[in-house]
């Protein structure tokens, strides 16, 4: 009985007793979830347009962040530009690198593997992951780096809000991350709905062959999609990097995007966002209120179990296309 009490009653009593702590952990979960959602977003873009289960999205995020910091260090190290200018130069150069990466992936990996089974393409992105890890560390060194958040003009420090009889402290960088993420999602929505390229992308997502037959170039679309995913990866990398440090260890965190994806459904942009928030908030609350019961550290697997729980009731995820099976 005691254990049942601890599982079903105690945490809620705690929540009621200290609502400021509840709000604090909700906020932290929200921020974490948003970053998961952004990784998942880059993934959904690629999956919709090319049907590739892009395992490398997490590593692309780290690679982008590492390129940004590495180029910045090289620029300031050579004394070419002052700190502020160098940061933006590095940002522009990183965007260029992501474009080159997108073209390279399309030419070297995707084009020869068109029409292969999903799992083969999935494995190819694994190869890409290894390649990017090796390449990134070779060029910029294997040690972890500090994100140049300040030089890019992102705010620093934290604000404390007085509410519910206590304090809720928020990192300013997290608030900025929330704002940037919202702008980016809104921007992507406009891009998809209102522009010519966006319409072509949606057409490809709907039906490759029909899109080909009305004269949409698949190769071009894939480059655009991988480039967009690269930009999303860069933005995510800057924010994750600012919260911790930039190293390929972050790639493991990016695996958390997988439960987010299956929760939301592989093909749904809103799904990625809602899924990210559910997973982020769920695992923070779980860790904070139920974690101590089993000795903590449950954050490492709770996300997968949350996703699994949802999947048992909706096997295609919350917003995924309904799976229709025919003989």
């Amino acid at each position, binding site marked *: 009985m005691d254990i049942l009490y601890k599982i079903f009653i105690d945490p809620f009593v705690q929540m009621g007793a200290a609502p400021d702590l509840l709000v604090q952990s909700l906020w932290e979960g929200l921020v974490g979830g948003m970053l998961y959602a952004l990784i998942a977003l880059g993934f959904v873009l690629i999956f919709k347009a090319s049907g590739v*289960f892009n395992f490398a999205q997490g590593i692309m995020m780290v690679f982008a962040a590492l390129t940004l910091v590495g180029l910045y260090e090289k620029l300031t190290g050579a004394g070419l530009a002052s700190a502020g200018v160098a940061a933006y130069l590095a940002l522009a150069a990183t965007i260029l690198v992501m474009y080159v990466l997108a073209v390279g992936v399309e030419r*070297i*990996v995707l084009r*020869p*593997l068109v029409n*292969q*089974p*999903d*799992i*083969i393409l*999935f*494995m*190819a992105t*694994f*190869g*890409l*992951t*290894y*390649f*990017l*890890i*090796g*390449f990134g*560390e*070779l060029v910029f060194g*294997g040690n972890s780096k500090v994100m140049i958040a300040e030089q890019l003009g992102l705010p620093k420090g934290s604000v404390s809000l007085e509410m519910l009889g206590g304090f809720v402290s928020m990192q300013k960088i997290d608030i900025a991350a929330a704002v940037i993420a919202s702008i980016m999602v809104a921007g992507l929505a406009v891009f998809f709905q209102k522009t010519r390229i966006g319409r072509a992308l949606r057409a490809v997502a709907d039906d490759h062959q029909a899109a080909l037959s009305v004269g949409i170039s698949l190769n071009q679309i894939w480059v655009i999609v991988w480039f967009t995913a690269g930009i999303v990866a860069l933005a995510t990398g800057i924010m994750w990097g600012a919260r911790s440090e930039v190293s390929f260890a972050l790639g*493991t965190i990016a*695996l958390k995007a*997988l*439960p987010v994806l*299956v929760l939301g459904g*592989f093909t749904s942009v809103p799904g990625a966002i809602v899924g990210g928030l559910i997973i982020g908030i769920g695992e923070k609350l779980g860790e904070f209120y139920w974690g101590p019961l*089993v*000795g903590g*550290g*449950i954050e*490492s*697997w709770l996300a*997968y*179990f949350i*996703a*699994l729980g949802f*999947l*048992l009731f909706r*096997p*295609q*995820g919350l917003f995924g296309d309904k*799976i229709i*099976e025919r*003989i």
Partner: protein
Amino acid sequence: MFYREAGQFKTSYASDQAIFPILQDKIGIAIILAIAYLVIPLLGGSFFLASVMIPFLILSLASIGLNILTGYTGLVSLGTAAFMGVGAYACYKLSTFWPGVNIIVWIVVAGFFSAAVGVLFGLPSLRIKGFYLAVATLAAQFFLQWFFARVPWLYNHNPSGAIEVPKHTLFDIAITGPQATPTARYFVVLSIVVAMTWFASNLVHGRIGRMWMAVRDMDIAAQLMGIRLLDAKLMAFAVSSFYAGVAGAMMVFLWLGAAEPEAFNINESFLLLFMVIIGGLGSLIGSFMGAALIHILPIILRALPAALGLTIGSATVEHLTFMVTGALIIFFLIVEPHGLARLWQIGKQKLRVWPFPY
């Protein structure tokens, strides 16, 4: 010419369904076994045995396990390393409780524990399909790894958090622990792997294997034909985890000698999936080829700069190894998406029609 079934008449169903129906296959397998049992232990140094052959055989066994699940039944799993961990920890606990029983018995029994855990995590596979299922196995991966680290009972409250293997003997020869020679360990590993490969080969060529393949090709159609999906999928999970568990127990007892939960992390699972896919989905010989490629390639790559007389820092070599491995994976997938096993089949066909082109 060299490899031809002409003139080899079958007079019974049993001989038609034999694992090696052709004489040349029987000779071939005998030669391979002779090399494995006689030539390699005689000619290979202890480094070669300990860090190339033993890991290669153990990883091959784990890949066979994963291949049964992913290649034959079509269920993607990203949690093989965790199931290997279950086997390792089960074997460790069993051998602490009953140290008198021969360790090989416990290595095999540990597989059953792993199979039970595998069935438990395989239950969602009835409802979830494709990559969605990969997340269920990821749940197993992260949960079990956490569990190994959090339950001190599992590693006998060892302050270092690792499991360490004491000395066990077979016919008074040390086969585990620091005193065991690589040769002794090699023979034990080889024998277990050969026996289990033979068993797997029988399994996948028989009724059960055909059932799995029907489920892989289309599970609804298989169900309509009267195959029980519940049984087929859970059996695949059980057998696959059994193989992984035995491989895990062997990995700790006969290869590493000690292990922490980190030894069974997600990267290990990914590497095993590589082996299966590079080797060839749905092919036992492919599992061996994939394991050989993925395990031996980095060893060669690391040794290459020194052999060529180049002086490159060890960190750089490590990074280059990553890059080259990634590039080679993509290269192999582009050249032969069906894996090395397909190359082997093509080679056999060439031998069959030689000296004519087709």
